[in-house]
């Protein structure tokens, strides 16, 4: 399947066009900064590194984070097609993709729990104070995104 993907017109365009690959890499780093940047700020707030700000502002920022994620899903898929068989057997790449999935599942869990606090004043206050029940999830999410970035950087070296 991956070798078929490499023969498609779109894979050829990414691989052979002079500017397609660098242009897609450029989009990929903007998307990374948006989605990982917003999630890391949210996690630092929920972990108590940043204090006293209402964590629900990150629900307002969630659509922007999802936009960054979509940008990277599309640009990442196009980058993948150009050398699908190589990426599919690259260990850092496989680690990265697995951890992206974990990070997005955690994001959905964290956001739904943040949304629920609007109907529960006590939970809301507990998040505003540092004894956040979301703290373990936030710390896990931080570790996941650090792994995603580290593994992503190492793809080129393996």
């Amino acid at each position, binding site marked *: 399947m991956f070798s078929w993907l490499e023969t498609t017109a779109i894979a050829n365009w990414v691989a052979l066009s002079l500017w397609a690959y*660098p242009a897609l*890499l*450029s989009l990929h*780093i*903007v998307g*990374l*900064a*948006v989605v*990982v*940047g*917003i*999630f*890391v*700020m949210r996690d*630092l707030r929920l972990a108590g590194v*940043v*204090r*006293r*700000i*209402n964590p*629900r*502002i990150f629900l*307002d*920022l969630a659509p*922007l984070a999802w936009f960054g994620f979509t940008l990277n899903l599309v640009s990442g898929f196009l980058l993948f097609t150009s050398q699908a068989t190589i990426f599919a057997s690259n260990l850092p790449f496989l680690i990265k993709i697995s951890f992206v999935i974990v990070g997005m599942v955690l994001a959905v869990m964290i956001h739904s729990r943040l949304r629920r606090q609007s109907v529960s004043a006590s939970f809301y206050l507990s998040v505003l104070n540092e004894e956040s029940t979301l703290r373990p999830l936030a710390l896990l999410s931080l570790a996941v*995104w*650090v792994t995603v*970035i*580290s593994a*992503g*950087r*190492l793809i080129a*070296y393996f």
Partner: protein
Amino acid sequence: MIRSFASNIADSSLNQLISEIYWLWPVLEIFHFLGLSILLGALVTIDARLLGLVRNCDALDVKRFVPLAWVGFCINLVTGTLFFIGDPMRYAINIGFQLKMLLILITGLNVVAYQLQVRPLMAGWSAGAATTPAAKLIAITSLLTWTGVLLLGRLIPYVGAG
């Protein structure tokens, strides 16, 4: 002048060290990417409040993310300087690198504008309150220039001498 400066660095012992430790370059790259995520994440959060995309908090609250922006910036200043020392001849003459440094200077001017036009007014912008047009312009300038910095940085390996 840039060339002689760069070739002096190329002869330095730190340059030798960076090129001899084979795992150092990828580790520096990882930290440079983590640093940019922290810097851009903090700026997006602050700028979103100034632009009104986020309204449901006091403007002074998002100011709590300013120290994180500096943490990200410092990580990237250190790692970026080490990249330059490790391969000065490549970066000094690269048009992508030169324009990236120019844009970072512009972001510095924008920080001065923030200190003058935004910071003194922030205490008055409680939850739900709109900011000033100047604050919005400064926020947009911040987002656009840093996006430009990301794009130019990523293109350094693909563009030639300036």
